[in-house]
């Protein structure tokens, strides 16, 4: 921020707004195209696309809007590092969820 002039930082903000808007439109378009034309096909690729695009939006919000790109590196690291725990959380709990499903199906068959 300090190195940018007022006009530059203004322009940058509206550019990020446009990027976020376009990414959101891409997500909605992908969801609707899948719904209208490929309803029965697997969602693997689609969901992967959604994850990547959401991460892109999160990057722009955190780096530009929340100004994290312009802070000192130790500060950025101390804010982002705790989120590493979430990677484990997501993997472990989705795994557990699948297990509940298969356990339920197993007992339904026996019953």
């Amino acid at each position, binding site marked *: 921020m300090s190195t940018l002039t007022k006009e530059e930082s203004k322009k940058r903000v509206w550019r990020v707004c446009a990027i976020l808007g376009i990414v*959101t439109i891409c997500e909605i378009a992908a969801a609707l195209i899948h719904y209208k034309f490929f309803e029965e096909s697997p969602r693997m690729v689609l969901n992967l696309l959604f994850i990547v695009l959401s991460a892109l939006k999160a990057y722009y919000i955190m780096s530009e809007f929340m100004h994290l790109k312009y802070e000192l590196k130790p500060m950025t690291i101390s804010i982002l590092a*705790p989120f590493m725990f979430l990677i484990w959380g997501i993997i472990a709990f989705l795994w557990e969820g699948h297990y509940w499903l298969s356990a339920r199906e197993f007992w339904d068959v026996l019953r």
Partner: protein
Amino acid sequence: METTTTSVTSAKELWNGGDSPFRVSYGKIMIWYFLISDTFSFAGLLISYGAIRSSQPKHDALNPHSWPDPNEVFNAGPGFHHAPLVFVTFMTFTLIVSSVTMVRAVQEGHYMNRAGVMKWLGWTILGGLTFVLSQAWEWTHLIHEGMNPMSNPFGASAFGALFFLITGFHGFHVSVGVCMNTWALIATRKRVFEKRGHYEMIEKLGLYWHFVDLVWVYVFLAFYLF
């Protein structure tokens, strides 16, 4: 000996005391730490959403207990039907634009431009209110359709419970943000920050507001896209 000590302390040694190592004020680092803990609250909710969802059968039009298709649940808005995801797109855009107007308010604060801060803060409040009211409409609509925390006509009942819990928690954050921004608008009008000599409070509120926008990216992903 003396020369080495002075060269070490006068250079970019941020961790030798006498300087803020992060070059950030106390208030700003504290709002960041609050946001980190709040991220874990939302992450806890969204991860349990993921665990419960993956424990339910995948969407299947023939199975009434399977996970519902968001395109079929969220297909209405005020005055229109059979338009999947249109209303939520509007809500998402409202939140993105209100985030941008908040950045503009923060920037005007840096230049000590009181009128500019008030103008952009006003737009941010309007965007936040539009979002909360849209969500209220959507909740009312879904409750009329028969969806509530206990049951869900579109499929797995857990969908209803998780939807109201998580969008409710997010909507609560947006409402709190709107209240705090309204307070800041009044304080700006009363020249509180002008007398203080800086608009750092607007910056802190901005961090909170962008966080709310950031969480919406993932709520949107979990409920409306996946």
